[in-house]
């Protein structure tokens, strides 16, 4: 039903991550108005107050701007968008690194694998 969530993180933070990802990936573009709380809550099949809380979180990060009664819009500030994009990439990298280290890989091995999997012609 609706969006899927896992157990150990509050649903509102998981929703915030999903909408943040939608903004970064361009599903919602700069200055675009996002759907109203009720519609998003219905889509996600969550309590409207939980959705409200997720959007407030994204407002606090500057990714969404509330315009009174009109609705919420994606920021047009390219710096905030770029920062969010890097932060999301950082989170993926952290998870990847800690996963590999848990399996006992050393840093140089991890880098080697990453280059081979990604683009072997890549030069630094």
């Amino acid at each position, binding site marked *: *039903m609706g969006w899927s969530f896992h*157990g150990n993180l509050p649903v509102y933070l998981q929703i915030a991550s999903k909408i943040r990802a939608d903004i970064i990936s361009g599903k919602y573009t700069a200055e675009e108005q996002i759907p109203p709380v009720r519609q998003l809550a219905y889509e996600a099949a*969550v*309590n409207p*107050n939980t959705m409200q809380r997720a959007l407030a979180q994204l407002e606090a990060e500057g990714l969404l701007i509330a315009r009174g009664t009109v609705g919420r819009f994606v920021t047009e500030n390219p710096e905030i968008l770029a920062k969010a994009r890097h932060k999301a990439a950082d989170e993926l990298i952290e998870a990847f690194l800690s996963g590999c280290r848990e399996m006992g890989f050393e840093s140089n091995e991890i880098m080697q694998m990453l280059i081979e999997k990604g683009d072997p012609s890549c030069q630094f």
Partner: protein
Amino acid sequence: MSILECRNLYKGYGNKKVLENMNISVPSGKIIGLLGPNGCGKSTLIKMICGLLVPDAGEIRVSGIPIGAETNRLISYLPERTYLNAGMSVTELITYFQEFYTDFDPHRARQMLDDLKIDPQAKIRTLSKGTREKVQLIMVMSRNARLYLLDEPIAGVDPASRDYILQTILQNYNPEATIIITTHLIYDIERVLDEFVFLGFGGEVIMSGNADDVRAQYGKTLDELFREVFRYVQ
């Protein structure tokens, strides 16, 4: 402002005490899960709020008003068992509800019946148990009430219909209204709740709070927390 206020409630059946000095206050505009093991008094409490049972002692107020005809107008109640007249068709039932409740919205009811592919000409008698439950919930949610009391709304329906029912609750829910849901299927409903109340035996409030905060506080879902709090030791 609280929509529901229960003070020093006592209720027993014969020698069996069900609620002992229960106190609870429910804020307006929220979806609340009233959760507890079998026999803890959830249905008893709900029936008292509807005026179907009278407390042995204590006081219940809905929107500040003592239980009576005036509060019954504000309440839309889904009982744990169906009470529908088996000889009526679904369409006759809509007419019946429309005559009975001034806040009943027949268009909303017909839309939901249509979404769930329930034949409005069918007699209640011919419907399966799960479908009867759906019809009854549709009737209850088609009213514009201030307080909805849903006693086990999804117990007998299949998972796909359960999803539809929860979305129906979300869609038709007016932010001014309050919904109290009792259920054992916590995993299915926790995402639609604002607040939860864990009731122990005797109607004691063991734990309550914001449903989503449980994950941050305990690192587990409300369903997992319930299983832990009410674990039976072998």
